């Protein structure tokens, strides 16, 4: 099946710093989503971005489907940005339908 790798596994920042999280995937995808998991376990939708670039406030994301990677940018980080960030994809072709395959996540810690 498709493989999803996220880097870095851990990231520690001072408040106000910028960061880039990367997601590599091993095969073509029809769907790619970025999530933020809060300390209570809730997965919060950040972006639905199978291709192209999107921005939402201090966050933006870019997916280059032909090169099989996606980037999540966080600017002017805040302590509330702390948590685990997941990239998840739906493989193209076959009968993948809506099966999301997740990466292992990036643990982000923002210090005041």
């Amino acid at each position, binding site marked *: 099946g498709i493989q999803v790798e996220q880097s870095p596994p851990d990231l520690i920042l001072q408040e106000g710093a910028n960061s880039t999280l990367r997601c590599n995937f091993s095969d073509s995808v029809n769907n790619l989503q970025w999530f933020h998991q809060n300390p209570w376990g809730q997965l919060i939708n950040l972006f639905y971005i199978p291709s192209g670039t999107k921005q939402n406030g201090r966050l933006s994301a870019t997916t280059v489907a032909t090169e099989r990677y996606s980037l999540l940018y966080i600017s002017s980080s805040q302590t509330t940005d702390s948590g685990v960030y997941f990239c998840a994809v739906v493989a193209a072709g076959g009968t993948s*339908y809506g099966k999301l395959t997740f*990466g292992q996540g990036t643990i982000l810690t923002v210090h005041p």
Partner: protein
Amino acid sequence: DAGVTQSPTHLIKTRGQQVTLRCSPKSGHDTVSWYQQALGQGPQFIFQYYEEEERQRGNFPDRFSGHQFPNYSSELNVNALLLGDSALYLCASSFAPVQGGYEQYFGPGTRLTVT
């Protein structure tokens, strides 16, 4: 607009017992998927229900079964619980699972502890 809801929030069971978890999809959604998230791992796909049928299944044993009701809500049943079944169980909803799917939205999860 109500989001995805799950019940119960927490659950403690003993090895060998059976458990039922419940999920109501986001308004307007007709497809429900279930995921298991072990501590420190990403969520793993269990199965997906659409039109009251299991549409796709991940690598989970038959002890894991499910059901979808006419109102699109869903249940996840786990029989003969093992210690290794302790995890956060997440439900996600979306529109019909056409090739590639649509954006999925997750509920708050049910944290199951097996002792």
